[in-house]
């Protein structure tokens, strides 16, 4: 991506005076113009600007999907109703998010904050992010709007390297851990042995969840999923069931070839104290 050479910047101090006084009468954007809203930090916004993108609107999407009572009771194999509820809630929340982003003229949503909770009788998914687009290009892309939980910073680096995000992929699977026979349980009580039933259930949940995430990625014509986050373990409300959820951003190469970013080595002299945020003061 070629960046136009920039003119030498005016001194910061002059710029600030200019902004605060000379421009004071500059008419605010006309009332009918849609105001931009964004939850990006100034660093993130500058990162976006450096590749010619800008924020458009803060968007969100929420979905709750029920899991009928009894699904978690003893059984065998996958708890399909729960896996399905998770998938549907995720898709519904994403659809709402993307609809809002599309309506605002965004090409994608970056930095999506994902709050997810699996309760015994319902799944809750809530997404918040900022819709972005190449500067002043409100025309929608043919292929639709993407969502990504990558920060604006990561998005920038990805684009600089010639890649593009395509969407969020997720896979969830909830599986019963087969009950051990009474005899086996007593035998194992005082021994350090592998609980093969749990291992097997975990494996099966992991395979199914990863498989589903990959399928979503392939459907989006992605060539990879980055920054995959997984959550696994027994369910807090049903200890005989285990769950595995995987989530990541689908990417593919947008250019002919990957571009090396050639990082510079630095030695930082700042300790953590320099990362100051006025809001933590109170």
């Amino acid at each position, binding site marked *: 991506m070629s960046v136009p050479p920039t003119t030498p910047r005016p001194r910061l101090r002059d710029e600030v005076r200019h902004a605060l006084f000379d421009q004071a009468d500059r008419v605010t954007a006309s009332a009918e113009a849609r105001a931009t809203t964004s939850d990006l930090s100034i660093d993130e916004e500058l990162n976006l600007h450096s590749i010619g993108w800008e924020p458009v609107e803060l968007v969100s999407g929420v979905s*709750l999907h029920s899991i009928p009572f009894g699904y978690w009771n003893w059984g065998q194999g996958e708890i399909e109703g729960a896996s399905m509820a998770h998938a549907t809630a995720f898709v519904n929340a994403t659809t709402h998010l993307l609809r809002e982003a599309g309506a605002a003229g965004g090409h994608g949503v970056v930095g999506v904050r994902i709050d997810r909770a699996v309760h015994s009788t319902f799944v809750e998914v809530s997404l918040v992010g900022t819709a972005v687009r190449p500067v002043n290009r409100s025309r929608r892309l043919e292929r639709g709007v993407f969502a990504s939980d990558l920060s604006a910073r990561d998005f920038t680096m990805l684009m600089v390297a010639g890649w593009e995000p395509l969407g969020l992929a997720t896979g969830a699977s909830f599986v019963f851990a087969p009950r051990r026979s009474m005899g086996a349980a007593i035998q194992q009580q005082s021994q350090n042995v592998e609980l093969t039933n749990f291992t097997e259930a975990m494996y099966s949940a992991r395979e199914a969840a990863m498989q589903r995430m990959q399928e979503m990625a392939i459907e989006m014509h992605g060539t990879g999923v980055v920054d995959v986050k997984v959550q696994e373990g027994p369910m807090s409300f049903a200890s005989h069931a285990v769950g595995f959820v995987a989530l990541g951003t689908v990417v593919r190469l947008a250019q002919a070839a990957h571009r090396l970013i050639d990082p510079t080595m630095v030695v930082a002299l700042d300790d953590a104290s320099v990362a100051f945020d006025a809001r933590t003061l109170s």
Partner: protein
Amino acid sequence: MSEGPLDLPEAAQRRFSQGAFSSGLSVSDFGACLDMGLEPVGLVQGFCAMHWGAYSMSGLGRGTTPFTGAPGAAHGYVQNYQCPHGMISSEHRTWGQNYQQNWIEDAWRTGFNSAYSRMMAEAQALGAHGVVGVIDGENPLSDTGVVEFHLRGTAVRVLDAPAPSATPWSTFLAGQRLAKSFEAGYAPVSIITAVTSVRVWSYCVTEYLLGGTGGMWANAGAAEIHQIVDAQNEVRDLARTRVRASLHGDVLHGAHLEVSAREIGPGDVEFQSRLSGNRVRRFKDFDPLPVPRPTVRLS
């Protein structure tokens, strides 16, 4: 300014009459401000202690029918839900309702705005052009049923600039972040915060779906829980609409949106959404910065 604004406590007047400035800025932010030509003139603050009731509508509990005459209901969000089962029982909630609680939003705005205008009055008394590094919050005050709204920031004057003519501007940003936002072409206007509240009185279908007992009613086994989804999306949307209405075409930068849920009773939930950020005005056209140089730390 000789006569201070009415609201300013005597102690603040005394503090401002002294020579030394105070600033809540960290040293790096202080340095960055000086670099920008912003000179700190004093730490300014504003408070408002409010009685914070039990959020109930003065005795109007959940009635037997959806209400229509609630305060503000006429111009707020209201959505009704009707039982599809056609059965009557005291256990069975035949109707449900989502509604916007305008009176909570109004009370919240009163508290916030009072604290804000007091802080700005202090800034004006100091002859400041703006207030940077604002921190805001509401704290319950011990066990008194009192909530205190507080705002704090550092008032600044622009070096070698004409005396301020209008209300000072304000921003949550300070230091380098503020400098960078100027470089990005944004001039600060004011901080913006809005709180909206939606109350949910659930009806049978919502109850069954949340409780997982929808299977009894054949068609409501596994489904999206519309009433809650509506409320959740609406409470976010209301907050954004409210903020948008006060932007007047400007930009909301560095927004933060959070939603909390509070269960008031069985089948009775309040969702509160809080959206805050910096209202900023674009003062120059888009001018991309050079692509930052990627670095890897050697340690």
